[in-house]
């Protein structure tokens, strides 16, 4: 009996030790974190640290990683660790960054970039023309790089501070592309020493902030680069936290647990009632539109598609999704895009329910199901639901098929939908972005479902817009292309997405930009 009792106690102890041991490592690990973020405080003026929160977790830190998927979630981190040669101002103009000036050849095929001579990577290596050429020559041919640095041929070193970028054909928005993530300059010497994986785990750039650490699912810690060529940034410590729940975000914002909230939920912000928090919105580079399936189902009939064009009340959708803070869309080019035709130079369609009913009556539609494919749990789904109500009122048997992202892609490829609704961003911030949706080389590529939206005429216009250097002529070309899309009612553009950013009212310099996630933390100060 005593033996059994001893054994019993021993086993219970074992269980306890096992569990507390695990608990023990936790307090070790967290205290380690705690020291790193000791400088945290909340709301007080005169402090030099800041906590930023966002719902999505950045997880790729080498800007042109060869195998990983990249997305906009990483932009706020990447653009503060790394720098591009030129920087895009909030109004879309180009400012010098790592390049002091640039020259474009008359044929638009050669960009000569003059680089700064006083820039060092966080590793201590000097940034040279060699790094720039290697970066561009590696990133531009990659799958995703190709879409932004289009027509890129090669980048050649002229001398230590000069490179010349050669294009196979002019690409009008090339300067915009040079402001993007595929033109963030990395340290070639270090890369050759440690390789891609190690570089991705401890990114090194020339930017105002240095990488300190990352805790998966929780936070990324950055520290100011005191040797930054443009002067040390005012805010020294940055903690970038992942916070998925929008109620939690609001409580933390009000509570002072976080100082800045990126990609904030506008409905939640409108309910905030405190002096301590300010917020601001801007039109994003991402557009929410509905692509109608023109090769299957009721969408094959032009009159039916036109009925959709006239019968959708976009303002109502804007209110339903963004509390009315978004700009209602007319063409698939956000207001901030270069090359976008000026208002009045292209056709628009006003909401007209009577006309829509007429068109529907004229069409061959006979009450069959019209299903809108969208991604569940997103704003797209909210938009689809409002849309469904409107279409049912119009007399269309509309259903919403909201599925998770993987199933969306699958259904999209099989073409099993009447229309698909999903916002998509255009990082190059130019009218050329829709090339990838309409040009037959893209829309009819193997593996893609043919929506029936490309034509030789459109191909010609998009190809012409791409290489046209004269901005007035370019706008004309795009106005013509947009009219062709509107006349054929291939898509219905609903609204331009909104970037919202909420911040502690003591913080200065926070401006949301059109390109989602593009913030320069060294512009901020308390």
């Amino acid at each position, binding site marked *: 009996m005593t033996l059994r009792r001893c054994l019993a106690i021993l086993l219970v102890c074992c*269980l306890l030790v096992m569990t507390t041991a695990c608990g023990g490592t936790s307090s070790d690990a967290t205290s380690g974190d705690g020291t790193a973020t000791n400088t945290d405080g909340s709301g007080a003026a005169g402090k030099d640290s800041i906590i930023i929160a966002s719902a999505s977790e950045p997880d790729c830190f080498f800007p042109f990683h060869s195998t990983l998927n990249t997305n906009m979630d990483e932009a706020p981190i990447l653009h503060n660790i790394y720098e591009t040669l030129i920087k895009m101002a909030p109004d879309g103009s180009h400012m010098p960054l790592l390049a002091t000036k640039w020259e474009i050849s008359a044929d638009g095929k050669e960009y000569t970039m003059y680089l700064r001579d006083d820039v060092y990577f966080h590793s201590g290596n000097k940034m040279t023309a060699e790094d720039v050429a290697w970066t561009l020559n590696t990133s531009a041919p990659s799958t995703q790089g190709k879409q932004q640095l289009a027509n890129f041929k090669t980048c050649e070193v002229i001398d230590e501070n000069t490179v010349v970028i050669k294009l196979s054909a002019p690409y009008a928005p090339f300067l915009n592309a040079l402001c993007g993530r595929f033109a963030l300059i990395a340290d070639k010497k270090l890369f050759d020493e440690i390789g891609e994986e190690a570089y991705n785990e401890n990114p090194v750039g020339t930017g105002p902030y240095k990488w300190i650490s990352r805790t998966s699912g929780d936070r990324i810690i950055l520290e100011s680069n005191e040797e930054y060529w443009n002067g040390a940034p005012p805010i020294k410590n940055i903690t970038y936290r992942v*916070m998925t729940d929008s109620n939690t975000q609001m409580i933390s914002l009000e509570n002072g647990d976080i100082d800045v909230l990126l990609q904030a939920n506008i409905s939640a912000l409108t309910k905030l009632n405190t002096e301590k928090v300010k917020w601001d919105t801007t039109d994003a580079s991402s557009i929410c539109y509905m692509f109608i399936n023109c090769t299957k189902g009721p969408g094959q009939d032009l009159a039916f598609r036109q009925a959709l064009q006239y019968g959708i009340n976009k303002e109502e959708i804007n209110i339903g999704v963004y509390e009315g803070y978004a700009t209602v869309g007319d063409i698939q080019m956000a207001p901030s895009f270069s090359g976008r035709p000026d208002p009045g130079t292209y056709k628009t369609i006003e909401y007209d329910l009577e006309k829509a009913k007429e068109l529907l009556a004229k069409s061959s539609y006979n009450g069959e199901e019209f299903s809108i494919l969208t991604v569940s749990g997103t704003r797209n789904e909210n938009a689809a639901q409002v849309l469904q109500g409107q279409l049912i009122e119009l007399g269309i048997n509309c259903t919403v098929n909201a599925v998770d992202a993987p199933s969306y892609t699958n259904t999209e490829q099989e073409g099993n939908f009447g229309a698909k609704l999903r916002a998509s961003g255009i990082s190059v911030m130019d009218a050329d972005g829709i090339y990838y949706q309409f040009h037959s080389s893209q829309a009819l590529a193997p593996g893609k479902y043919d929506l029936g939206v490309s034509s030789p005429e459109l191909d010609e216009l998009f190809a012409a817009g791409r290489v046209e250097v004269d901005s007035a002529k370019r706008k004309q070309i795009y106005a013509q292309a947009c009219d062709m899309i509107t006349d054929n009612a291939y898509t219905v553009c609903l609204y331009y997405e909104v970037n919202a950013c909420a911040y502690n009212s003591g913080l200065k310099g926070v401006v949301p930009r059109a390109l989602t996630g593009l913030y320069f933390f060294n512009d901020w100060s308390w």
Partner: protein
Amino acid sequence: MLKYVAKRGLMLIPVVIGITLFIYVIMSLAPGDPATLILGPDAPYEAVLAKRAELGLNDPVLMRYVKYMAGVLQGDFGSSWYNGFNVLTEFASRLPNTLTLGLMSMAISVVVGIPLGILAAVRQNSMLDYTTLVLAMLFASIPAFWFGLMAQVIFCLTLGWFPATGAESLKHFVLPALTLCTGSLAAQVRLTRTSMLEVIKLDYVRTARSKGASEQRIIGKHVLRNGMLPVATRIGTSLANIISGAIVTESVFSIPGVASLLINAVKIRDVPVVMGVIVVIAVFVGVVNLLVDLTYALIDPRVKLEG
């Protein structure tokens, strides 16, 4: 006894194979091609094909499974398809938070739940009994996300006692642990009460009473030891659920734990991460259950573990 442990240990192997095979096949059968998902919908077809080859997606499911498990046996859980981070390191970095949260919540439900249950049983049909039961029902029916939100509003915003989110110190875990334990606390109270009441009615308790033993001695010495057996089992099984049980709480309080890792991976179909987490959870649950059974046999002399 050793033989029993060995036998149970061996039985764990088919269980783990069964669970992982099931999950692996399900993940493979789900619609959506992983290569397209990783590269994005606009990726060129050749890139997608190359990615498929790189991930080995052209092999039959069973072969992929065998390859994967062979890696796991050598300690190689692979790396995430999306961010390339090693699955095991990622898991290990999140495990402490989940364990702290789970253990704290369990501790609260045991320390508060068992005494309340005993009191309710001893004072059956009293005001105290009813109040406890009503409160237990109430807590069991409050959804975790709402409770968590209310706790944040009261204790963080209004009173400022606790931080609303994060996992830096034990203080950060107080509200999440309270939120997580509401359901199990209620169950604990009710289970303790019921099982105590059952034992109180037994003949040997009546014998003890007629012997003239004091009420304190009857409850403390005779009823408690037998009444606690089912409660001990429950504690054991809930220990096994710690790793996987806190999805809502983790998201409301932004705690980077295992549950949120798993749920995100499932959303984007990150097979190596999902599989890695499932394998570890399956083994953990198996081992903990075995330990619980062993402990049970030792605290209840009537239970014999035969090989």
